[in-house]
């Protein structure tokens, strides 16, 4: 006698109506495991009061400190239920049953008593079978194999409920790939294994199945039955992917970025890019690096870029300005507080070097070192992060050539620096030489900055960096 049982799997959201009609209501009487199809677990199991077991050392009461489950959650045997504390000992209480949590007897900080009920768990009437309805439709096959499960090799992890399900369907656990914790075999794994076996029994899923790159099992082609159809329909799901979308609120650094960038939308950006030949600067830095090290400071290229920018801003002060909310007034800022975009573990942060117009390249290097170490320690203060008037973003340390940076309000301009590449260029004599080239991409507020201004500023900045000696002439 073949018993038809309705299958519902947690990953299938609906079952086609014609499928359900196959299901003869009279068959309900035959199997005690029959249930009407519903989307929530049906309450027809037995409620067991799981008592708090003996902690040891004669302890009779503990304080409940944290719940790992809530009412309605399903638990497997050995899953953690809660954390309790007694006299400097923290105890993890694990479940003895598979089932659904129906009641928590205590709230956080309540005193719980040894020997008294801790939680109520609803377990199935037929012990060992999982309470969610997932009974499988098997094609009428005669199974000569005995039902005793042989487990090859090392011990396979699976809860008793899962083992029983496997046994009922004549599945060898050793052949199933476990996707749970510690490669534990879950109900879903058994069902997916069955799907492979029975092929077209599963109604085609409306969503395309994702193939997980990590769990690579044997790729299962479409079941042989499909060969009869004229149009090959990809039916099988070779690899079990049990990932779920995760939604989290936007907080912290991300929230800050959302706010800043949303405000930046109001600014009509235009871009201007160029390449800078840093061959001479690279050499200069090599000479100066050991000198800076003696003074205990790490010298990168940024101090030069920052100082050159400040010298440029002296000639084109509109780039160091701020437009008010109503676009009525432009404020030319006296201080050149040049921001440096920094990538930290938590996200993007932009501290600024104050008053670059009166700082030497070395002063800037010292300050950058300070900001960098504070930034990586997560200890930058509000004064470091506010008051910026112009920003440089050295994305080239990570990579890239051209970029389209977003202006950080209330500023009106920003520059993104690409990586330094060694490229062939022609010199004055028409010879090819190895040049150290870096690309710069500027963005500016087109309400008050025009292309010509940006271009001239960029040319000036570029000339300072291409022949660093010229910076000496204009240094204040």
């Amino acid at each position, binding site marked *: 006698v073949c018993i038809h049982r309705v299958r519902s799997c947690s990953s299938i959201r609906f079952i086609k109506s014609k499928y359900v009609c196959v299901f003869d209501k009279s068959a309900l009487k035959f199997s005690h495991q029959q249930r009407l199809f519903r989307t929530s677990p049906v309450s027809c199991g037995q409620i067991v009061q799981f008592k708090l077991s003996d902690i040891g050392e004669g302890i009779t009461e503990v304080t409940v400190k944290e719940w790992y489950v809530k009412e309605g959650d399903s638990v497997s045997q050995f899953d953690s239920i809660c954390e309790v*504390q007694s006299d400097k000992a923290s105890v993890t209480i694990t479940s003895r049953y598979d089932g659904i949590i129906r009641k928590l007897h205590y709230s956080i900080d309540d005193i719980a008593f040894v020997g008294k009920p801790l939680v109520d768990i609803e377990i199935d009437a037929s012990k060992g079978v999982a309470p969610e309805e997932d009974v499988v439709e098997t094609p009428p096959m005669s199974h000569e194999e005995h039902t005793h499960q042989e487990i090859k090799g090392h011990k396979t992890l699976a809860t008793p409920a899962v083992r029983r399900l496997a046994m009922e369907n004549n599945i060898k656990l050793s052949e199933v790939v476990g996707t749970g914790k510690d490669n534990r075999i879950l109900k879903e794994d058994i069902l997916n294994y069955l799907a492979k076996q029975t092929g077209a029994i599963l109604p085609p899923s409306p969503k395309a199945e994702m193939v997980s790159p990590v769990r690579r099992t044997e790729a299962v082609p479409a079941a042989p039955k499909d060969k009869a159809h004229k149009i090959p329909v990809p039916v099988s799901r070779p690899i079990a992917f049990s990932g779920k979308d995760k939604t989290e609120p936007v907080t912290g650094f991300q929230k800050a970025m959302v706010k800043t960038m949303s405000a930046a939308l109001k600014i009509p950006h235009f871009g201007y890019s160029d390449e800078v030949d840093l061959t001479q600067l690279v050499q200069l830095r090599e000479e100066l690096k050991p000198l800076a090290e003696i003074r205990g400071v790490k010298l990168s290229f940024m101090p030069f870029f920052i100082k050159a920018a400040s010298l440029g801003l002296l000639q084109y002060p509109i780039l160091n300005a701020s437009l008010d909310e109503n676009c009525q007034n432009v*404020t030319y800022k006296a201080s050149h507080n040049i921001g440096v975009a920094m990538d930290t573990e938590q996200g993007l942060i932009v501290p600024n070097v104050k008053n670059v117009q009166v700082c030497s390249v070395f002063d800037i290097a010292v300050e950058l070192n300070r900001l960098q170490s504070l930034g990586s320690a997560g200890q930058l203060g509000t004064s470091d992060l506010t008051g910026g008037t112009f920003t440089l973003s050295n994305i080239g340390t990570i990579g890239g050539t051209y970029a389209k940076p977003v202006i950080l309000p209330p500023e009106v301009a920003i520059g993104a620096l690409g990586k330094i590449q060694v490229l062939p260029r022609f010199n004055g004599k028409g010879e090819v030489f190895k040049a150290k080239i870096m690309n710069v991409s500027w963005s500016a507020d087109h309400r008050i900055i025009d292309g010509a201004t940006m271009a001239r500023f960029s040319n000036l900045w570029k000339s300072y960096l291409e022949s660093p000696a010229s910076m000496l002439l204009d240094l204040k």
Partner: protein
Amino acid sequence: MVLQSFKNCLWLPCVLRTPKACFWSTASGGLIIQSVSNDVYQNLAVEDWIHDHMDLEKQQILFLWRNSPAVVIGRHQNPWQECNLRLLRQRNIKLARRKSGGGTVYHDLGNINLTFFTTRKKYERMGNLKLIVKALKALRPQLDVHVTDRFDILLDKQYKISGTAAKLGRTSAYHHCTLLCNADKFVLSSVLKSPYKGLKSNATPSVPASVKNLFEEDASLTTEMLLDAIAKEYAVQHQIDHHITLINPADETLLPGISSKTKELQTWEWVYGKTPKFSVSTCLNMPYKDSVLDVKVNMDVKHGRIEVCNIDLPEQWLPPGLYSELVKSLTGSKFCPNETTALVATLLRVCPQDNELHSRWSLLCENMIRLM
């Protein structure tokens, strides 16, 4: 002595509780191991790993470890309540939350940590502490040390030299304790004093005690001598060789999964986020121009994040739009100075550029951040 044999052995990481991989000593009823690392997170991860993976039925384990300066709070404690977080950050002292209960301790290289791993059934703290006392007395018979009912070890009947905590799981358990040999008492007392007032919480409070180093009692004692003496006593009581196996907590082959445990212990979500719900109710005294403003602040913090935030400012001191933006930003955000600084700096970008406003804003925000 460094382990040699493990490289030749197969280790099946996917199998929980393998009856001992062959490099752990199988013949005896006990094993003594010592960490080569002084990183508190790595060492706590080792404890966690042994608790989860080792079968302690046939052999018990004694784990010896020391840490570079760190403050370690109990599983259910509140770091704001237990220590001076600003001082910790300034001095680069790490903050860790362990998985066992109990109170807050300060670790440095002058403090030794001992963890006794047993099965859940054989969990027994008093015996372990008496073992330590016996070892100390064997080393220096004149030492006046004894174990109290609270599982502390006292020197000269008044100074605490050891504190205890424990963790119990389904089948295994561990009891660990500290032992003050030559720790920096000055730093200890200053970091373990919280300047916080107005904090209401159900977190486990620490019980402060006067402490003393064993070194002060007998200057010839060193941490090595103490470790050795305790290992010797453990070996005698468990009838095993007095042999200490060194382990490297960074060795993923030896301890598969250890690096993810180490990482987890360092996450903000674990260290701060596991703080039981608490509320802050305080008054900021902000000197502004010629007067001092008293601003009442009330915040509820759950999972380390601000659930509710109320700042009682004088009317119109800040434009109402900006005030509500501030409250909205803070709500749901971490009770963390770094994150709050980033948020308030951002809000300043998008508000009217007015020097007066900026200075008020900075003043308020600086004070708020100081609370975290």
